[in-house]
């Protein structure tokens, strides 16, 4: 491997890694709030990608506006998702888990009905041209993904640590009964966790659309890697989600550069080994048990 290919591999890995990281944040934020793994999250990403593709290709909106509107629409979908699950909250975690799977299947079926089972290709915005730095050809779209991912993380961090509502959300996640006694509407905080996670997933889906194919099955391919990233970093940890995402992106990128046919096999094999050595993930200090 020459230095050039190494650099390109790293940039590609970090670009995809940012996407996985954004998906992982959605898994972690809901897990922290409710102790629930939201298996429907991968399909929320897919719906977000379709919203974006439709706004871009059919409504001919500019790229940035399409992603923003899709994030808002998908955030509303997240609110709806939590509302459907709410009657089960605090009663039966297993039923809620099955509920998230069911909601995901429903979203996939709706996507097939609305957009068909064949995928759609989304072009990279033409204003973003590949450029050279010395002998390295850089696909700047990966840099755009990284920048947007970093912006999402920074905004989320500001919200969770500087804003009263974000701090109330953290309180609701740490100790729901006490947060309630302090006047926090915990159900609303949970809904907000779903909405934020879903909106970020829509941004991730919208960004990754041009690199892959937007199809009803993309949740299973991209989303599951986001889930692996969340586990790798430590489910429930925000820094873990980001580091896990970038790490998984890099592993996948290097695997693809050497043995492209076996990319997923190698990426998940490395993932499995890491999990065997450190079952709680990189930043996972404890397993949250809340039933």
């Amino acid at each position: 491997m020459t230095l050039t290919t190494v650099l390109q591999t790293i940039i590609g890995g970090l670009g995809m890694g940012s996407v996985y990281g954004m998906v992982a944040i959605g898994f972690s934020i809901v897990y922290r709030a409710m102790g629930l793994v939201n298996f429907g999250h991968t399909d929320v990403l897919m719906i977000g990608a379709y919203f974006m593709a439709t706004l871009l290709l059919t409504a001919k909106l500019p790229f940035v506006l399409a992603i923003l509107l899709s994030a808002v629409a998908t955030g509303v979908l997240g609110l709806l998702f939590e509302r459907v699950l709410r009657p089960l909250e605090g009663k039966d975690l297993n039923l809620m888990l099955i509920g998230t799977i069911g909601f995901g299947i429903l979203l996939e079926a709706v996507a097939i009905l609305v957009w068909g089972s064949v995928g759609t290709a989304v072009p990279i915005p033409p204003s973003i041209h590949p450029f050279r730095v010395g002998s390295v050809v850089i696909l700047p779209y990966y840099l755009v993904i990284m920048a947007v991912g970093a912006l999402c993380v920074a905004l989320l961090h500001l919200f969770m640590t500087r804003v009263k509502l974000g701090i109330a959300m953290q309180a609701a996640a740490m100790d729901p009964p006490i947060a309630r006694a302090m006047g926090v509407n915990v159900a609303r905080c949970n809904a907000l966790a779903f909405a934020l996670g879903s909106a970020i997933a829509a941004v991730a889906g919208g960004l990754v659309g041009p690199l892959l194919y937007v199809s009803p099955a993309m949740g299973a391919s991209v989303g599951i890697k986001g889930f692996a990233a969340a586990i790798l970093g430590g489910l429930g940890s925000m820094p873990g989600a980001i580091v896990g995402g970038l790490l998984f992106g890099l592993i996948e990128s290097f695997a693809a550069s050497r043995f492209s046919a076996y990319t997923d096999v190698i990426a998940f094999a490395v993932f499995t080994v890491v999990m065997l050595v450190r079952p709680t993930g990189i930043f996972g200090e404890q397993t949250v048990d809340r039933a």
Partner: protein
Amino acid sequence: MSLAASPTEVLREAPEALDLSGVTKRFRGLVALRDVSFGVREGAIHGVIGPNGSGKTTLFNVVNGLYPIDGGTVRVFGRDVTGWPPWRLARLGVSRTFQNLRLFGRMTVLEQVLVALDPAAVQNAWRYVAAPRASARRERRLREEALEILRQFELEGAADELATSLPYGHQRRVELARAIASRPRLLLLDEPAAGLTPGEVEVLAAQVAEIRRKGVTVVLIDHNMAMVMNLCDRVTVLSEGRVLTEGTPGEVAHDPEVVRVYLGSEAEP
């Protein structure tokens, strides 16, 4: 030390801040509270005492909405709040502390106070996007208010420290500051003096008296009899989930029934 300076005659005329009638709570077969009825006048410090397991904390948990009620009604400032969720009660002005210190694990002292601050005005999330500048101004104001409350409890130096890393006495103070942050009209204190040194208890008693002076009605559970007797206008004694007796601290202290439940049954013939 006569901290209970407010004249009992005036209190008798005041409307009721808390009115319990026939409150009953069962845990499967066990009856934790049986037909508990008493009232607390606005502006009073009302003590609730009784041996361990007599249902004092359960009573708070029912009043506060943490436990569903099995019978009876709870009225707060004249409103029937039976079955209200805790966060709604908090917004009506009911706040509390917890017997076994329930501070948020990974949060600074300032953040603990911020959570409770201004619960009536938790903003709709949209407004952060729709009016970012007004929201930012509001956030700054909330932070200043939180710091002001910390100053009141001499905790401003620890504002950015993890609350759970502070010494025990300070953690108790953080909990009290957090309870005050929601600007309650009715404050439920569950054994606030537990584990404090005599010096810290004195500071606490002065703080509670000051909180009442500002117009907050206080209901106080504690085993520190000296503090309860000094602070409270009236005291309700619970035993095995029932109201054993109620009266002024002087009346209660000399009630033979109370002496019996506190000293055990040897006094019985």
